[in-house]
Every structure is written in C-alpha cells, then in structure tokens.
C-alpha cells in the first residue's frame, strides 16, 4: 500500500521522451526526472521500476508518436526527393540517440531501434517500388543528413541523383 498515483502517466512519459531526446540517457539523472516531470521519486520507482524502465516506455512512445506517423507519411511519398524530405524533417532525436548511446549496451533498446528503422526502410521500399537494400541506403543517407544538418545542401544533390528512382 503506498501513495495513490496522482499523475498523468502519459504526460510524464511524453516529458521523459523529450528530456531523454534532448540530453541522452546518461545526461538525465533521477533528480532531473523528479524536477522536470513533477513526480515524486517513490512514484517514479513504483510506476516504472527504474530509470531504464521509464526510458524504454519513453522510447516506445517516441516510436509510436513520432516515428510511426513518419512511416505512414512515407507510404504515400511520390518520389525519392519527397521521402528524403520527410525523413530529414522528422523529429527523430530520441531514436538517433538511442541508436548511438543505448542500443550497443541494451539488447531491448537495440531491438526497438532495429524494428523502427526496418519499418522506415520497408515504407520507402513500398512507396518507391525499389528493392529493400536500396530503400535502406536511402534511409541511411537521410539519417546521415539529419545528423549532419544537411551540409552544402547535400539533400538536394542526392534527390537529383535519385529522382529517376521515383
């Protein structure tokens, strides 16, 4: 028997996803979570079990609320340039950080990240009617552009080359 849960769990998870997406897993302490989520420490532990438990829930929310809509939108992308634009303008911060920071150390995170990227690849392959490996190459290039902040307009250059694909 403990304190009654008096917080909006979805709101807490959303705020946690924002926090982890901005500062990465190791950059967020339990003190930060208590301060920014407005939830008692005991409630955090009772509800999510651990910081990692909360992180997994936050990552899955990010995948459902930010990556899923991207996959849906990609499904109706008319050409490679549009697909590229959709991916490079999506909010994929937590997914990218998870891929770099947590996936190598955490098999559950690795599985979530791999499944999300597979879904993006598949959506691109289906929409453009291209083989899976070419779709994955396009996704990889798009994620690279997202990471590098589209230096020298490489997105446009790549789209020009890929246009015949569409």
């Amino acid at each position: 028997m403990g304190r009654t849960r008096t917080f909006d769990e979805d709101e807490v998870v959303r705020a946690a996803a924002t926090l982890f997406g901005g500062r990465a897993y190791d950059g967020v302490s339990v003190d930060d979570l208590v301060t920014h989520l407005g939830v008692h420490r005991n409630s955090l532990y009772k509800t999510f079990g651990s910081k990692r438990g909360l992180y997994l829930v936050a990552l899955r929310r990010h995948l459902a609320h930010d990556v899923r809509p991207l996959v849906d939108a990609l499904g109706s992308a008319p050409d490679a340039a549009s697909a590229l634009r959709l991916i490079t303008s999506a909010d994929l911060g937590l997914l990218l950080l998870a891929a770099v920071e947590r996936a190598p150390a955490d098999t559950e995170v690795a599985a979530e990240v791999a499944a999300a990227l597979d879904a993006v690849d598949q959506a691109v392959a289906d929409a453009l009617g291209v083989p899976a490996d070419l779709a994955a190459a396009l996704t990889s290039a798009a994620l690279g552009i997202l990471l590098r902040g589209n230096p020298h307009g490489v997105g446009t250059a790549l789209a020009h080359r890929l246009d015949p694909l569409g």
Partner: protein
Amino acid sequence: MALVHIEGDDLVVVIEGLDKLWALKSSLTIPLGNVRGATADPGIAAEPKGIRAPGAHVPGVLTVGTFHLDGEKVFWDVKDPSKAVVVELADEHYARLVIQVDDPRATVALVENALIGKG
C-alpha cells in the same frame, strides 16, 4: 557498503562490515522475478527517508536499516550518496533497497542485464 551478485535466479545483496549490525541483516536474497530494476541515484539520499525501525540513522553520515515511508518498507545501507543504487522490488518484504555499492554503473548493468529476457 553492499556487494551485489546474481546467484542462479536470485539477486543476492551482502551487507558488509559493521553495517550488518545496524541493519540486523548480513544478506538479502531476492528472486529475480521480484526485481523490477536498478538505478544509480545519488540524489535519493537527500529525500525524506521516513521512520527508522530498526536501524541507525545519523543524518549526513549513515543511513542503515529498515525505514517506513508512505506505508512502504525501504531497506537502506548508504554512507556515500554518490554511490547509491536503488533496486525496486515487487511482492517482497521491502518495496525497494537503497544500497551503496563500489561501482554503481556496473551494479546497475549487472542487475538490468539479468532481468532482460525475464519479462
């Protein structure tokens, strides 16, 4: 200080030195199925700990023993808050353990990896 290791399907926490006198315990064995997770949490030492019984609490120096807070029992064994790890439990005598370990990051990884795949 506490030593944490995995023995088969159990998490075993061994209380070291004089702490075991105050804690009235030398070790705790918890089935992994009742362990929900582990978190390095230096900040928890600054939180209210509740009422001690039994144990020793010298604020700022030593927190060892069973504490009652919000209807829950929490086991504490911490002198150096920077090395505190919180182990959340389910269906156990204690709701959680707050223990000081040598290497919090390694202990958290040990516990969390033991839990992966166990649901």
